């Protein structure tokens, strides 16, 4: 089929992924092969540089996607224009004056730092509402969850901690035995999952993330 650039085909990125991954896998298990160690160190440095370059790619992507909306005057385009303006101003101040620049610091400390915890406070609000929903005892499982939750909350009350160690001991037992046991099982399973998805990616079986044109 014509019309598809060779650079848009899947074989090239898949080949790069396979070769680089295999270098790191072999280096992980074999030690003392000098060219391999140097190569992995160099590739590791490249990865750091690429991740820094990705920030620049991100900046360009944002300008393209939001610039298109501003040009088309679609929806709330003025927010897109505002985003581009603030982004370029902050980037310019940081690039010219560094992070110690007073104007850059003002934006970071007085705008970003103020807005961030304000919005983060929603997390606590929703934690409470979701806890209320989760604690509705509809079956034995929810009952156990409720019991563990209430015991933990009681154990965290300072007065209870001073008066009696019983609830604290119960809480510690819940954390150390059932909770840790379940979490360990989750973690083992998760680690295995990462190994399996790694194998799929290295072997080119998993291709959905590439998203490029089918070759």
């Amino acid at each position, binding site marked *: 089929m014509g019309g598809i650039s060779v650079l848009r085909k899947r074989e090239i990125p898949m080949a790069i992924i396979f070769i680089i991954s295999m270098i790191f896998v072999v280096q992980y298990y074999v030690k003392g092969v000098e060219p391999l160690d140097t190569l992995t160190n160099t590739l590791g440095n490249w990865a750091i540089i690429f991740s820094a370059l990705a920030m620049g790619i991100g900046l360009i992507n*944002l300008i393209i996607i939001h610039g298109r909306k501003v040009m088309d005057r679609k929806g709330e385009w003025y927010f897109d224009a505002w985003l581009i303006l603030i982004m370029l101003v902050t980037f310019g101040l940081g690039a010219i004056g560094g992070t110690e620049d007073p104007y850059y610091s003002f934006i970071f400390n007085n705008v970003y730092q103020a807005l*961030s915890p304000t919005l983060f406070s929603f*997390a606590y609000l*929703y934690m409470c509402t*979701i806890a209320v929903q989760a604690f509705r005892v509809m079956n034995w499982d929810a009952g156990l969850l409720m019991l563990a939750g209430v015991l933990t909350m009681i154990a965290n009350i300072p007065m209870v901690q001073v008066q009696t160690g019983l609830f604290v001991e119960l809480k510690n037992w819940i954390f150390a035995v059932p909770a840790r046991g379940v979490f360990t099982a989750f973690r083992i399973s998760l680690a*295995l999952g990462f190994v*399996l998805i790694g194998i799929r990616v290295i072997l080119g079986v998993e291709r959905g993330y590439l998203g490029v044109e089918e070759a």
Partner: protein
Amino acid sequence: MAYLKNIVGLALLALIMVFYVITYWLITRKKVMPKFRTLPGLLALDEIVGRATEMGRPVLHSTGRGALYSSGVGTTLASFVIYGEVARRCAKMKTELITAIGTAEHIPIIQSIAENAYRSENALEELKYENFVFVGGSQSSSNARIFALLEQRKPASFIVTGGYGADLCTLGGAGRAAGCLSLCGTTNTYQYPYAVAAYDYWLIGEDFLATAAAISKDPPQVANIWAGDLFRFLLVGLIVIGVVLAWLGFNISEYLTI
């Protein structure tokens, strides 16, 4: 002088690969399709997209703030694969899809996945580029933008997959308050309780990573998951043996590390 290190790890990796080869051989040559464990979160995709189609409202999919260059990349890749499937189903059902993108570097990848999905359903003209919304790279900014999308666009369904922190809980609560049917997919162990409590359907831990393979039904993908399941049974057996040996006074952990 070259020598092997992490011999136990190498042996385990080799064992997984052996399981993989055997299961793949069984599937392709003997036509034995293993029974794959049911993933309710995956089955819910039809309901989630179908609800939006019936109500004539969009699906909102947040693809997360996951890393592309660190160990969390598996989560991000799994999120992309699920997003591709959601986009394909939306294209098939002619349902509007709004995509909340949490990391600027993801934008071209997400757009490319969506284009591919819509093209596969011959519906590329239905893809609305203004529906790719960058929601910022931090929890606070993404929360704020997604709250606004939930309020303004009134999606019928809300899908949250990929890398998240505490905002997983916040988004679940906001989605429920907006009356959305919700699904989340995460590998963040600390967020599992919130995922279960705040969302209608969830894919947590290894299930989330396996979803990509379960969607495709491709023999190499299914074999990969089946090999993992077999390996898991082996691990459980080893853990039981280890517990018994430790109880009898044998410390086997010293033989497992080199």
